[in-house]
C-alpha cells in the first residue's frame, strides 16, 4: 500500500528506484555468476564504470536539492565531493601500510619522498575506518556550514553566490596542489591496496562497492524525497520563489538555506567517498571548477527540481562522455557545450520535462 501511494505521488522516483533495484540484482549476477566466456558476462571494468556513474548521480542529486528546489546555484559542489573523496583516500592510503614503494610502515610514500619524519596531526585517526567515515561527513559538512553561514547571513544570492562557490573550489584546488599541504600534491593519492581488509582489485570487492553505491543512491533519493515532500520542502520552495515573503511569514530563511546547503554538501562528500575506491585515485583535479560546472550541466540536462531528473542527467551525460571521449575525443567539449545551450533554449525542464510534457498532452 505504501508502495502504491509512493508510485502515485512520485512516478519518476518509483521508476528510478525500480531501475536501481534491477541494477543491484542483474549487475552482480552477470559479473560474478556468469562465466567470462559467456557473451552475457559483464566485465568488472563495466561494473566499476556504472558504480562511478552512480556516484556522479548522487552528486547531481545533492546539487538538485539546493539548486532545483532552493535556487542556490553552487558552482563549487565538486569541492565537497573531492573533500569526501580525500577523506576516503587518506583511509585507503593508511591501509597500504608497508606495502608502498618505500616500504615505510608509518608514512605514505609521498611523505617519505618529501623527507617527512612523522605523520602530520591531521592524518591521525585515518587508519580507522569509522573515523575516516566520520570525516567524510564532517569535513564537507563543516566547510559548507562555515561558508554558508557567512554567505547566507550576508544575504549573498544568485550569481554572486555562484561566483564565490567557484572561487572556493578553485582556492581549494590550488591549496591541494601544494606538496606541503600533506595531501600528495598534484599526484594526489593512488595505488590503494585494500579496504576493510578486502582486496580492492578483487571482483567481489568491486561488486560490493557497486552495491554500496546503488544502495546509498537509493536511500539518499528517498531521504531527499522525504525532505521535499515535508513542510520543510515547501518552505524551501517558498524561499526560492519569494524569499522576503517567507521571511515576513516568520521563517528564518538563512537557517533553512544553511541546513539544506550543509545536507547537500554531506551527500556530495559521501558520493566522493564512494567514488574514490572505485576509480582508485583522488587528486586535486577533482576540485577543478570545470567539474563543478559539468555537474550543473548534468542536472540541467536531466531536468532540475525533480530529483530523478538529476540522476538521469548524470547517468546519460556521463555515458555519453565515456562514449564520445573514446570515439571522438576532440569533439566532447563541443558536444557538451552544445548540449547545454540546446537544453537551456529548448528544454528548460530538461529531458524529463520533455517526457512529462508528452505525457500531459496525450489524452
Amino acid at each position, binding site marked *: 500500500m505504501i508502495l502504491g501511494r509512493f508510485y502515485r505521488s512520485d512516478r519518476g522516483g518509483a521508476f528510478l528506484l525500480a531501475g536501481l533495484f534491477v541494477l543491484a540484482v542483474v549487475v552482480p549476477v552477470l559479473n560474478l555468476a556468469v562465466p567470462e566466456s559467456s557473451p552475457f558476462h559483464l566485465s568488472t571494468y563495466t561494473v566499476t564504470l556504472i558504480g562511478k556513474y552512480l556516484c556522479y548521480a548522487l552528486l547531481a542529486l545533492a546539487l538538485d536539492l539546493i539548486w532545483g528546489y532552493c535556487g542556490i546555484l553552487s558552482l563549487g559542489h565538486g569541492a565537497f565531493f573531492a573533500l569526501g573523496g580525500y577523506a576516503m583516500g587518506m583511509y585507503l592510503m593508511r591501509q597500504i601500510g608497508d606495502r608502498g614503494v618505500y616500504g615505510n610502515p608509518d608514512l605514505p610514500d609521498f611523505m617519505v619522498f618529501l623527507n617527512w619524519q612523522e605523520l602530520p596531526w591531521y592524518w591521525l585517526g585515518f587508519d580507522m575506518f569509522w573515523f575516516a567515515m566520520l570525516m567524510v561527513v564532517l569535513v564537507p559538512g563543516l566547510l559548507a556550514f562555515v561558508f554558508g553561514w557567512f554567505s547566507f547571513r550576508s544575504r549573498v544570492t544568485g550569481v554572486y553566490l555562484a561566483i564565490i562557490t567557484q572561487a572556493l573550489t578553485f582556492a581549494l584546488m590550488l591549496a591541494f596542489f601544494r606538496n606541503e599541504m600533506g595531501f600528495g600534491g598534484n599526484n594526489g593519492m593512488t595505488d590503494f591496496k585494500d579496504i576493510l581488509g578486502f582486496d580492492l582489485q578483487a571482483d567481489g570487492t568491486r561488486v560490493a562497492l557497486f552495491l554500496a553505491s546503488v544502495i546509498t543512491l537509493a536511500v539518499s533519493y528517498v531521504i531527499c524525497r522525504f525532505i521535499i515532500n515535508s513542510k520543510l520542502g515547501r518552505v524551501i520552495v517558498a524561499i526560492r520563489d519569494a524569499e*522576503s515573503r517567507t521571511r515576513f511569514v516568520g521563517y528564518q530563511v538563512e537557517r533553512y538555506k544553511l541546513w539544506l546547503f550543509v545536507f547537500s554538501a554531506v551527500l556530495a562528500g559521501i558520493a566522493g567517498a564512494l567514488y574514490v575506491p572505485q576509480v582508485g585515485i583522488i587528486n586535486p583535479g577533482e576540485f577543478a571548477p570545470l567539474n563543478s560546472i559539468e555537474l550543473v550541466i548534468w542536472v540541467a540536462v536531466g531536468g532540475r527540481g525533480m530529483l530523478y531528473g538529476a540522476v538521469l542527467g548524470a547517468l546519460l551525460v556521463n555515458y555519453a562522455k565515456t562514449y564520445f571521449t573514446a570515439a571522438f575525443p576532440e569533439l566532447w567539449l563541443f558536444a557538451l557545450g552544445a548540449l547545454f545551450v540546446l537544453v537551456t533554449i529548448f528544454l528548460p525542464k530538461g529531458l524529463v520535462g520533455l517526457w512529462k510534457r508528452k505525457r500531459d498532452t496525450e489524452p
Partner: protein
Amino acid sequence: MRPLDPLRKALRRDRVFDFMMPQVVFSPDLDISHGPILYLEDVTVSFDGFKALNDLTLYIDDGELRCIIGPNGAGKTTMMDVITGKTRPDSGSVFFGQKIDLLRLSETDIAQGGIGRKFQRPTVFESHTVFENLELSLAADKGVWPTLFAVLNKAQRERIDEILETIALTGQRHQLAGTLSHGQKQWLEIGMLLAQSPRVLLVDEPVAGMTPQETERTAELLVSLAGKHSVVVVEHDMEFVRSIARKVTVLHEGSVLAEGTMDEVQNDPRVIEVYLGD
C-alpha cells in the same frame, strides 16, 4: 588620559547594556494598558541625506482600523519597513505594546511576534497551492527541524478552512497560487497574514489594480478584521479610504501632517495644499 578612563566612560551610561536587558518575549497578553499597541516616536530615516521619515510620531490603538495616506514619497512604505524591521531608523524608538522594542528584533522575530505585513505588489508562493500557502503561514514552531517533521493537526486544518472562508477562496484551495487573479492573490496574501494570528496587520495598497467589485469586497474584509486585530492600511485610492476609514493619518515629507476623521482631514487647508499643489 588615564588608562581607566575609557572603562569609566563605558560604565557611566544612562541605560543598561543591551545584553542585560530582559529577553524579549512575545506573549498573547501583550501589555497595551495605555491604549496604543504600536508606538513610533521621533523616528528619522535618511537615505543619502534625503529624509524619508522626519521625526515621525504615530500611535496605533489596539483593534483600530487606521488609514494612512499621503503623496508619493511621503514615507508610507518606509514607515512599514521600519516597523517590520526591514529598515533601521537613524534615531527614534518603535515599541510594540509597552515593553517590546522592535528596533532590537529581526524581521523574522517581528513577524513571528505578531506583526504581519502585506506588500505593495501581491507576493504569494506561486508554485504552491492556496492551501499550502496558508499552511506555511500558519502560526507554528518555525524552526528547521520541527518544520521537517511537521504534520497538520485537526485544529490547524479547521483554521485554514476558516481563513479560506474569510477570504472567499474555498473553491480555489487546490489551485496553484500563481494561477489566481490579481485580486485573489491580494486576498490570499491577506489570508496568509491572518494565518499568522497577528495583533497588527500592515497592509500596503490592498486595492491597487482591483476591479470595483473586488475593491468593495476588500473593504468589507478589512473592516471585518478590525477589532480583532489592529489594521493599518496605506492607500492612494481616496474613495476606498473614505469607505473604510474611521481615523486617517496624512503623512507629508516624512512626518504627520494631519490626523482625524476623513472629513476633518479633507477640509484641513494644509492637506488641501499638499494634495492640490500651491
